[in-house]
C-alpha cells in the first residue's frame, strides 16, 4: 500500500491495524514472564452472608499451591472503588454478592489453581438477600451496607411541573424496565504483575484507567502510589467494564506475596460474568405533557437504578441518566427523581451509554406515545421540540456548544428508509408484519463538573527523527491512538511511517484520565495539538539555528525534514534528533475540557459528574419485520445519523457508529443478565447471547457535521451516543408493525407473541 499523508478529515487506516491483523499485537492477556504463578479468587457463591470462618488447610496442602491469602493479608483499607470506596479487595466479615472474593490462591498452574479453589471451604451464616431495588428501599429490607440500601437519592428539576401539567392539553404516562447488560468484551479481565528489585510493583493490565488504578491499589493495599507502575496495552474491548479496578487490587496483593515471582490473573468467561461489572438494571416511570400542537411542556419521571452490591460508578451513572431523561428536547418544566439502590445483585457499573441507554428508552417511547395521542408524525413531534443551540436542556443547562440534533432528524426525514417506509411495510410477505421506528438521542461528553477532565500530552522528536506520541489514555478499540497519530501527523506534516505511539504507561506517559465518557480524543487530542504546535515551533527554530538563518521564518516541516522555503535548504529530522538533547525535543502540554457555566440550582446531590455541557447527537431509524408465527424480530435495515462536530476520520467515525448500533441492538433484542436471587443463570456465551454477523443488518451511517469550536479539529466524542437509540427505535418499529407497546427489554419473540395474543395493547 502506498504511503499516504496523515490528513485530518480523511479516511485513514488504523495505525494499529497492521500489528493486529498479523497477530503481533500483544494484549495484556498475551503477556507472560518466566516462572509465573497463577492467581485466582475464591468467589462467595452466595448473595448475602456473614463469613464465620474459612478452611484453607486442604488448599494450602495441595501440591503446587504457593500461598492462599485472605483479608488478613491486606495491609491497607481493603477497600477499592472509583468514587465510593465500599468494595472489599477480599471480603473479611461479610459477602454481598455471589462474586465477592473471600480468598486469593497463588498456584504453579491453572489446573492446580482450579483444584485449590474448589478445596476452600467457607463457613457462611447466610443472610436474607434483597434482589429488587424497590424492595431494598423498604424499611424492613435486609441491609446490604450498614449505612442503608439507598446509595443516593437525587432530584433534577426546572420550572414548576405541578402547574405545568395542569396547563398541558395532553398528558401521557407509562412505565418501563430494562435489565442488566454484560460488556462481553472478547478479552476478559486480566493482568500480569511482578515486583521490581526496589519493591515497586509493575503491572501490565487490561484497563481503561491506568493512572487511577494506582490510587485504587494504593488506597486498598496501603502502599505508595508512586511505587506502582501500570502499563495499559491495547485492550481487547472495554466498553466501561474495565474502568475501575477489576483484577488490579487482587493482582497487586498477589504480587506482594509471591516471593518476587511474577503473577498472572485471568478471569475466564464465567468469572468475568460473576465478578465483573454490568450495565445498571433500571425501572422507570414517566409522565410527559404537551400542548395541543405537540410542544412539550412538562416531564416528570422516577428512575430506580439497581447498583448491585457495590457503588462502582452508580451515582454518576444515575446522574447522567437523569440529565438525559428528557432526551434531546426542550422541556421547560421537569421533575426527575432518581434512586440509586444497593441490592445483593451483581455489581452495576460503567457501560457505554452510562445511564443514558436506559432513560433514552423511556423518553423516546413517551414521545411515540404522545405523537400517537396527538395524531402527529413521530418525526414531526421530535423536530418540533428538538434542542437548538442556546436552548436549555431538561437539567436547565444552556447548550452553548455545537448542537446538531435538528439536522440529524432532518437528514433522517429525507432518507428513503423513512420516506418510502410505507411502501416497504406494505410489501411484507406471508406471516410477516413490518414496521419502522425512530429515536432521537444525545450523550454528554466528558466528566462534567466536579472533576477535572484533563489530559497531558507529550510528543517527542526521537533521535531517529520519528515523532513519538506518549499516549495518556488507553485505546480499547475506539481508535484513539490512531486519531492521535492522525492529528500529530497533520500538524507536524509527517506520514504514518514516521510516527510512533507509546500506549499509556504510568512511568513514561502522563496522567490523562480514563478512557471513558467519550472524552479521550477530545481532551487528549486538544492537549496533543497544543504539544505538537509547541514542538513544531521548537523544531523550526532549531532548524533555523542549524541553517544559520538570522530569523526563524519561511520554514516548514515536510515528511522527514524541515525545509527553508526561500532557499530550499533542508535539515533532516534525524539530524535534528541527534543534535539536540531530549529535553529540547519534547513538548508537554495539558488541556482541561471546559465545563458548564450555568449554576443550575438542581442536582446538588451530585458532587461530580453533573452537569455536562458538550453533547453529541443522533437520530436512528430501524426497519423491523416481525414473524407472526414465532414472534421473532428481524432488523432488516438500519440508519444512524450522527452529529459529533467535525469528523476527524470518517472510517473511525463509522466504526464507532456501527459498533454502538450492534451493542444497542443486542441490548434491545437478546441480551439480559438473568438473575435468580442474585445468582446469574446465564454466566457464559451459551446462555448470554450477543449479536452474530447474521443478527446485525447493513447499517447505513450518515454523519452530520457541525463545528465544535473547542474540539480538536472541531470534533466531539461519539463513542456512546449510538448505543442509546437502537432499543427505542426497534421498540417503536415493533409497535408500528404489530400495534403493541413493549415496555421491557430485551424485546424477545416470546414477549411479542404474548403481547399480540393478549389482544390488549400492551405487554405485561
Amino acid at each position, binding site marked *: 500500500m502506498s504511503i499516504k499523508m496523515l490528513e485530518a478529515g480523511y479516511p485513514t487506516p488504523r495505525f494499529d491495524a497492521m500489528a493486529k491483523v498479523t497477530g503481533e499485537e500483544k494484549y495484556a492477556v498475551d503477556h507472560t514472564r518466566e516462572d509465573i504463578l497463577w492467581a485466582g479468587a475464591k468467589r462467595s457463591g452466595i448473595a448475602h452472608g456473614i463469613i464465620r470462618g474459612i478452611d484453607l488447610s486442604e488448599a494450602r496442602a495441595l501440591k503446587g499451591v504457593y500461598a492462599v491469602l485472605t483479608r488478613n493479608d491486606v495491609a491497607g483499607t481493603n477497600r477499592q472503588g472509583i468514587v465510593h470506596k465500599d468494595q472489599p479487595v477480599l471480603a473479611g466479615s461479610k459477602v454481598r454478592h455471589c462474586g465477592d472474593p473471600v480468598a486469593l490462591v497463588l498456584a504453579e498452574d491453572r489446573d492446580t489453581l482450579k483444584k485449590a479453589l474448589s478445596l476452600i471451604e467457607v463457613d457462611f451464616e447466610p443472610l436474607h438477600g434483597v434482589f429488587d431495588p424497590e424492595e431494598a428501599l423498604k424499611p424492613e429490607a435486609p441491609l446490604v451496607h450498614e449505612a442503608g440500601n439507598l446509595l443516593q437519592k437525587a432530584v433534577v428539576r426546572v420550572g414548576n411541573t405541578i402547574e405545568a401539567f395542569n396547563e398541558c392539553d395532553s398528558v401521557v404516562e407509562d412505565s418501563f424496565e430494562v435489565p442488566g447488560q454484560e460488556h462481553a468484551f472478547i478479552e476478559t479481565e486480566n493482568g500480569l504483575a511482578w515486583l521490581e528489585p526496589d519493591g515497586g510493583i509493575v503491572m501490565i493490565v487490561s484497563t481503561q484507567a491506568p493512572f487511577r488504578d494506582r490510587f485504587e491499589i494504593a488506597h486498598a493495599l496501603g502502599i505508595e502510589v508512586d511505587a506502582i507502575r501500570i502499563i495499559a496495552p491495547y485492550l481487547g474491548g472495554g466498553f466501561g467494564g474495565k474502568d475501575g479496578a477489576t483484577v488490579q487490587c487482587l493482582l497487586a496483593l498477589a504480587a506482594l506475596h509471591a516471593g518476587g515471582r511474577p503473577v498472572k490473573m485471568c478471569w475466564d468467561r464465567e468469572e468475568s460474568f460473576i465478578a465483573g461489572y454490568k450495565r445498571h438494571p433500571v425501572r422507570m416511570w414517566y409522565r410527559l405533557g404537551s400542548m395541543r400542537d405537540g410542544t412539550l411542556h412538562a416531564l416528570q419521571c422516577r428512575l430506580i437504578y439497581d447498583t448491585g452490591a457495590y457503588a462502582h460508578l452508580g451515582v454518576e451513572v444515575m446522574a447522567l441518566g437523569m440529565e438525559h431523561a428528557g432526551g434531546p428536547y426542550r422541556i421547560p418544566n421537569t421533575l426527575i427523581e432518581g434512586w440509586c439502590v444497593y441490592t445483593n445483585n451483581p455489581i452495576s457499573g460503567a457501560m457505554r451509554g452510562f445511564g443514558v441507554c436506559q432513560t433514552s428508552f423511556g423518553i423516546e417511547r413517551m414521545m411515540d406515545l404522545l405523537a400517537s395521542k396527538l395524531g402527529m408524525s413521530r418525526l414531526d413531534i421530535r423536530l418540533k421540540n428538538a434542542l437548538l443551540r442556546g436552548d436549555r436542556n431538561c437539567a436547565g443547562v444552556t447548550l452553548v456548544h455545537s448542537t446538531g440534533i435538528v439536522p440529524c432528524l432532518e437528514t433522517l426525514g429525507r432518507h428513503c428508509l423513512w420516506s418510502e417506509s410505507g411502501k416497504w411495510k406494505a410489501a411484507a410477505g406471508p406471516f410477516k408484519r413490518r414496521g419502522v421506528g425512530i429515536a432521537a438521542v444525545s450523550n454528554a461528553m466528558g466528566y462534567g463538573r466536579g472533576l477535572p477532565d484533563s489530559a497531558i500530552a507529550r510528543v517527542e522528536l526521537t533521535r531517529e527523527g520519528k515523532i513519538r506520541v506518549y499516549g495518556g489514555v488507553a485505546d480499547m478499540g475506539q481508535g484513539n491512538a490512531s486519531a492521535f497519530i492522525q492529528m500529530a501527523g497533520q500538524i507536524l506534516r509527517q506520514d504514518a511511517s514516521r510516527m510512533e505511539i507509546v500506549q499509556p504507561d504510568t512511568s513514561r506517559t502522563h496522567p490523562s484520565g480514563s478512557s471513558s465518557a467519550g472524552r479521550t480524543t477530545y481532551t487528549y487530542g486538544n492537549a496533543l495539538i497544543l504539544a505538537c504546535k509547541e514542538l513544531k515551533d521548537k523544531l523550526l527554530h532549531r532548524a533555523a539555528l542549524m541553517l544559520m538563518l538570522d530569523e526563524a521564518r519561511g520554514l516548514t516541516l515536510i515528511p522527514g525534514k524541515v525545509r527553508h522555503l526561500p532557499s530550499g535548504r533542508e535539515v533532516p529530522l534525524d539530524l535534528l534528533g541527534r543534535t539536540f538533547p531530549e529535553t529540547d525535543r519534547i513538548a508537554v502540554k495539558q488541556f482541561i475540557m471546559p465545563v458548564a457555566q450555568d449554576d443550575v440550582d438542581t442536582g446538588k446531590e451530585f458532587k461530580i459528574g453533573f452537569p455536562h455541557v458538550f453533547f453529541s447527537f443522533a437520530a436512528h431509524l430501524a426497519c423491523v419485520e416481525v414473524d407472526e408465527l414465532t*414472534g421473532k424480530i428481524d432488523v432488516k435495515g438500519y440508519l444512524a445519523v450522527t452529529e459529533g462536530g467535525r469528523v476527524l476520520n470518517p472510517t473511525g467515525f463509522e466504526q464507532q457508529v456501527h459498533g454502538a448500533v450492534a451493542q444497542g441492538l443486542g441490548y434491545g433484542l437478546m441480551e439480559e443478565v438473568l438473575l435468580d436471587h442474585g445468582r446469574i443463570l446465564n454466566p457464559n456465551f451459551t446462555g448470554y447471547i450477543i449479536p452474530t454477523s447474521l443478527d446485525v443488518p447493513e447499517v447505513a451511517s450518515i454523519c452530520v457535521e457541525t463545528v465544535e469550536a473547542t474540539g480538536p479539529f472541531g470534533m466531539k466524542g461519539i463513542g456512546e451516543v449510538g448505543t442509546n437509540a437502537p432499543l427505542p427505535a426497534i421498540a417503536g418499529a415493533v409497535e408500528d408493525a404489530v400495534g403493541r407497546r413493549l415496555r421491557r427489554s430485551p424485546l424477545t419473540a416470546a414477549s411479542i407473541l404474548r403481547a399480540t395474543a393478549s389482544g390488549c395493547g400492551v405487554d405485561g
Partner: protein
Amino acid sequence: MRKVFLPGSLEELWRCFEERPQSTVYAGGTDLLVGTYNGVLNPETLICLDRIEELKGVGDLGDSVRIGSCTTHTELLEEPLVQHHLPVLWWAITQIGSPLVRNMGTIGGNICTASPAGDTLPPLYIMKAEVELISKGGVRLMPIGDFITGPRATRLHGAEILTAVWVKKPVEYNLSHFEKVGLRNALACSVVSMAALLRLASDGLVEKAALAWGSVGPTIVTCCEAEEALIGGKLTAARLGEAAAIVRKAVNPISDIRADADYRRTVAGNLLLRLTVAH
C-alpha cells in the same frame, strides 16, 4: 493424567476399549470437550474417532443413503447425495451452530448427544432413520426413535459406537420443510424446531405426512394424530390450525432460560402454518 486415544481403525478402537472399558468416545468434541474443559464432566479416558476413515463418508445404496457417523456437518452440506436426496436433513444441518462448529461436529455426535434440541434429529425421525451400532461383538441396527431414550440418553452399550446412520430416501414425499426457531440467527440452541415431509397430489390434497418437533419434549416429538388431520385436505390455514391445536396437546416442553413452556407449545403449533407457504 487423562489418556486420549486416537485410533486409526476399528481394530485399534476395540483394543482401546479393552485397555480402558470406561472410555468416553467423541469425534468433533464440540459438545463433549466443552464440559470436559470446564470441569462439569470428568471423563477418565477419551477416545477420539477422528482418524477412523471408515466412519466417514456418504454412500448411495439405491433406495437408501448411508452416512458415516464421523462425517462432519460441513462435509454433509457439501455432499450432493445429502442435498439432493435428503433436503430436509440438509436444511437442518445449515442451522447447526456456526461454520466452525459444523467443520468439527459430526452427525454421529449430534445423534449420540441426544439433546432434545439436536437439529439433525427431527429430519432423521421423520425419515425413520436407523442407526448402525458396532462393537467388537457385532452389529446392531435400530430405529433412531428407539435408540434415543431421553435427554442425553441412548441405548449405546459400553465399548460400542455409532458407526453410521441409514436413511431411506423419502421418495414417497414431494414437499420437505424444516424450520428452527432460535434466539438469534447463528450459534443458537433450538428453542422449537419442526421438520416436515408431505406428499401433495396434483390437486393439492395431502396424501401423506410426516412431522416431527424438536425442543418440545424430552425427545423428538412425533404426532400421528396431527399427520392424520392433514391427510385428505389441502394445506389451508384452517386445516393446519386444527392440526396445530392437536400438536399443542401432544408436546411436553419445559421452561428454561431460553424460553418458557407456553411459548414453545404455542410456536410448535404455529410452525405448521408455515406450510401454507412452504411450496
